[in-house]
Each structure stands twice: as structure tokens, then as C-alpha cells.
């Protein structure tokens, strides 16, 4: 009698723990699904200049009072990686270390400019916390509108002549690196680099 109860109890515990593990796995999968489906809708609405078009010209002071000139060419011969971010955007935060590393590695070819929109005080705190002081940090609603930024983080690669070379939602390190890879190898068209890294532009909701 007691033995039966012990065995039954044992079986029940095993079942309960297995079920709890299954619930955990399901919750995790739901999270992955959310990540995959979230950005697709907004991406289809993406406006702004197409790849190959001149980038909108913008000039003004950044968050730290430094003058910044975007688009129009005539710079120091380097391309520009314009990255739209915002405080409280977790994907942006996870991307920042990658951007900072790339900015150092590609310093000869590329300058990195951050852009955002919203209350300057929150922006300044965000920039300081994330150690972005070394980069131009533009706070401008017009710039975001001109580039048709829907979801963040959004990257635009502008070459030295002021032409948009690649752009899109960059949700992961892979997206950003493929964007820069296209630039480094002189790949002119978006089709070429999409072919090289499937999903970089079209389904930037991307990798799980």
C-alpha cells in the first residue's frame, strides 16, 4: 500500500517537473515568435530615400554642441553610418557595443553618427550611460522623418558622395555587419548584399 503511494507520488513529481519545463519552453518560444513577427508590419511602410538616391541633407548642432553635416557629400571622404536609436529601446542597447567596436575598426572609412528624437535631457543621460560621448549624437525629429524611420534601431549607410548605400532595420549584430560588409566590399546595390546575407533588409525582424 505505502509502496504504491510512494511510486505514484514519485511519478507525479516527475510529471509536474516535466510539465513545468514544458511551460518554460513554451513561454520561451512565444518570446522568440514575438521577436520574429514584431517588426514586419512597420518595415513594409518604410519610406525615405531609396538605396542609390541622395541622402537628405541635414546640418546643425548635436547634443554636445558640435556641428554635424549629413548628406550632400563634400565631407572628409569617409562614409557615414547613421544609426537611429532611442533610450528605452532594448535592441538598440544590445547593438551599441557592436557599433562602438565597428566605429574603431572602420574609422578610416566610416564615421558613426547617432540620431534620436525626444527629450534632450533623457537623450543626454542615455548617451552618457552608454558612453556615446565620442560620437556625434543628433536629436532631430526632421531627420527621422526625412529618412522614413519606422522602427528602431534603423541604420542608414551614406557614402562619401552623400548617396544612400544601404539601409534598414538592424535588429542584430549580423544585420549591422552585413550592412558594413556591403560598404567595405563596395557592393553598390541592395540586391547584392541581400543575396549575400538573406534577410538583412527584407525581414530585418530577423534572426531568432
Amino acid at each position: 500500500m505505502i509502496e504504491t503511494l510512494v511510486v505514484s507520488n514519485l511519478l507525479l513529481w516527475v510529471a509536474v517537473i516535466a510539465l513545468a519545463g514544458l511551460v518554460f519552453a513554451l513561454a520561451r518560444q512565444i518570446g522568440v515568435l514575438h521577436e520574429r513577427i514584431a517588426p514586419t508590419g512597420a518595415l513594409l511602410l518604410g519610406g525615405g530615400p531609396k538605396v542609390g538616391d541622395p541622402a537628405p541633407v541635414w546640418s546643425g548642432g548635436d547634443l554636445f554642441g558640435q556641428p554635424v553635416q549629413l548628406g550632400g557629400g563634400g565631407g572628409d571622404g569617409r562614409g557615414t553610418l547613421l544609426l537611429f536609436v532611442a533610450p528605452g529601446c532594448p535592441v538598440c542597447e544590445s547593438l551599441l557595443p557592436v557599433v562602438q567596436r565597428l566605429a574603431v575598426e572602420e574609422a578610416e572609412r566610416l564615421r558613426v553618427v547617432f540620431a534620436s528624437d525626444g527629450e534632450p535631457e533623457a537623450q543626454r543621460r542615455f548617451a552618457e550611460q552608454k558612453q556615446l560621448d565620442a560620437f556625434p549624437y543628433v536629436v532631430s525629429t526632421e531627420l527621422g522623418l526625412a529618412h522614413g524611420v519606422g522602427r528602431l534601431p534603423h541604420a542608414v549607410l551614406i557614402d562619401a558622395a552623400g548617396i544612400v548605400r544601404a539601409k534598414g532595420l538592424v535588429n542584430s549584430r549580423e544585420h549591422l555587419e552585413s550592412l558594413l560588409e556591403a560598404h567595405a566590399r563596395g557592393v553598390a546595390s541592395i540586391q547584392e548584399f541581400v543575396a549575400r546575407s538573406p534577410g538583412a533588409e527584407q525581414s530585418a525582424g530577423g534572426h531568432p
Partner: protein
Amino acid sequence: MIDPVLLVVLRGALALLFVTAALHKLRDLHAFRVALGDYELVPWPLAGLVATGLVAAELGIAVMLVTPWARPWGFAAAALLLVLYTAAVSVNLLRGRRAIDCGCFGPALRLELGPGLVARNALLIAGALAGLLPPTPRALTALDGLPIVAAIAFLSAAYAAASRLLANAPALRALRGEP
């Protein structure tokens, strides 16, 4: 009065919880400092010090919980720390600042503030306070080992699952088009 089996389960589960919480935060202490800064309760220059202090407190609580003579102090400190965390979350919920990371799991999982987080912490506080009840005088037998190990495993998995579901909540709200 509380059965000694439940007491051991509470000790084990809470100790495990605090150790994992501290380890998650240690993986990226700077991120925890930033999360702490986002609560806007501690001046930014002090956030680093407070972050280190909180991680040390979590580790200390875990050690106290598994040390036989320090057990009641462990439960009391656990309840106190959880009350502190819950108060910090509640203040920011009242301020309407939901979209910040709670900092609970470091880089492993982003969890935004919400009523669910407060409810979760309330359950944990109840668990920690239950550990302060006097144990029923009965000796533990070998057979008690099964429910102890099994219950700790179950509670850990259930806690992880609940955290994931809480973390998914903002994505679900966005999908439904709710603010």
C-alpha cells in the same frame, strides 16, 4: 508552524533564486548599474556603488539561507530586499515609467515593470516570511528527500516560466495595439 520539508524547500529555492539573480547581474554589472539608474531613485554617480552592494546582498542572503544558524536572518533579509525591490518598482509604476528594464536578470532577459512583477515579488515575500514560522518538531527521514528535491526543481522551473511570460507581456500588448 511550518513543516520542516517546506522550510528546507523554501531555503533551497530562495537561495537558488538569489544566487542566480546575483550571477546574472555579475555577468554585466554595468548593465545593472544602468538599469538601476533608469529607476531614477539613486543619483547616477552612486548607482555603481549601490549596484555592487545589491549584488553582494543577494549573495549574502543566499549564503545565510543555507547556513543553519543564520537561517532566520537569511529569510528576514530576503524579505527586506524583496520589499525594497518591490517598492522601487511600485514607485516607478506610479510615475508611469513602465518601459524600463527591471534589472532582475541582467543581460539574460529583459523584463519591463508591471503589476505582474509586483505580484511575483509579493509571492516571493510571502515565501520568505513563511520561512520565519517555527518548524514543526519532527525529524526528517530519507523519504523526505524526494519532495524536497522535486519541489525545488519545480519551483525553479515555474519561476523561470513565469518570468518569461512576464517578459513577453509588453510584446503582446504591442501586437494588440495597446499602449
